[in-house]
């Protein structure tokens, strides 16, 4: 792994089936909207040795026409939405702040859990995204220190605490940096 700067990483790892699934999905999404991958997959991408069934992703609020274009293209590429087939219903769910999940047709695992950004914290996550260039394409993930703070102070499960530890050790992130994001989370009512 080569950390070019705070916003760019080159990862020369061999890709696994989950990585290929994610790359296939984001190659479609990125043609229409910015996105950011958050939570567990961020630590898996850099080597955390645990499994997962879903990959969380934020996109900004988009209009229905654009959503329908994305959905059509995803279906053409062999994805289906697990929650519903109807595009109106799926779009309504997103607008209500719910997640919708996409998997390969007739499967449910693995799946991409997509949400609209809903507040300043989600917006900031998207704005501060990092580019990770892999052997088969680019992925945008959340800022590492932000991710650690979120896992350590908001999510709090054993799995999340361990993900946070992994990322902190992996990237040698200082407590000062993590606390900066803890303060931001607190200022915006997340802790």
């Amino acid at each position, binding site marked *: 792994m080569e950390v070019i700067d705070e916003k760019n990483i080159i990862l020369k790892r061999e890709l696994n089936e989950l990585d290929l699934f994610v790359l296939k999905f984001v190659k479609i999404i990125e043609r229409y909207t910015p996105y950011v991958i958050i939570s567990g997959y961020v630590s898996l991408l850099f080597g955390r040795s645990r*499994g997962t069934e879903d990959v969380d992703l934020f996109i900004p609020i988009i209009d229905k026409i654009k959503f329908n274009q994305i959905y059509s293209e995803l279906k053409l590429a062999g994805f289906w939405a697990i929650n*519903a087939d109807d595009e109106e*219903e799926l779009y309504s769910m997103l607008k209500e702040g719910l997640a919708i999940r996409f998997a390969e047709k007739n499967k*449910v*695992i693995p799946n991409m859990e997509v949400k609209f950004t809903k507040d300043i914290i989600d917006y900031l996550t998207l704005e501060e995204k990092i580019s990770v260039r892999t052997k088969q394409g680019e992925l945008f993930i959340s800022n590492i220190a932000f991710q650690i703070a979120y896992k350590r102070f908001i999510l709090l499960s054993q799995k999340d605490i361990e993900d946070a530890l992994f990322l902190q050790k992996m990237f040698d992130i200082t407590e000062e940096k993590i606390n900066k994001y803890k303060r931001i989370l607190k200022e915006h009512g997340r802790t």
Partner: protein
Amino acid sequence: MAEPELNKKQREDFIVQWVNFIKSHSDEEWSKQQNILINSQLKSAHQFTREEYLKFKQELNNPVD
């Protein structure tokens, strides 16, 4: 140390050791090992129906079409 705490400590120690392994080996090398775990987990994952999966995730608000 109580058993849950010991277990937690062992898990955290393993994470630190694994990070050290990653840092001291090439991306190609560590990822081969990690991929065995992830690929086998995906291969053996039980493919629920949509309804079963959403129920499991407690997201079954509306019946799937």
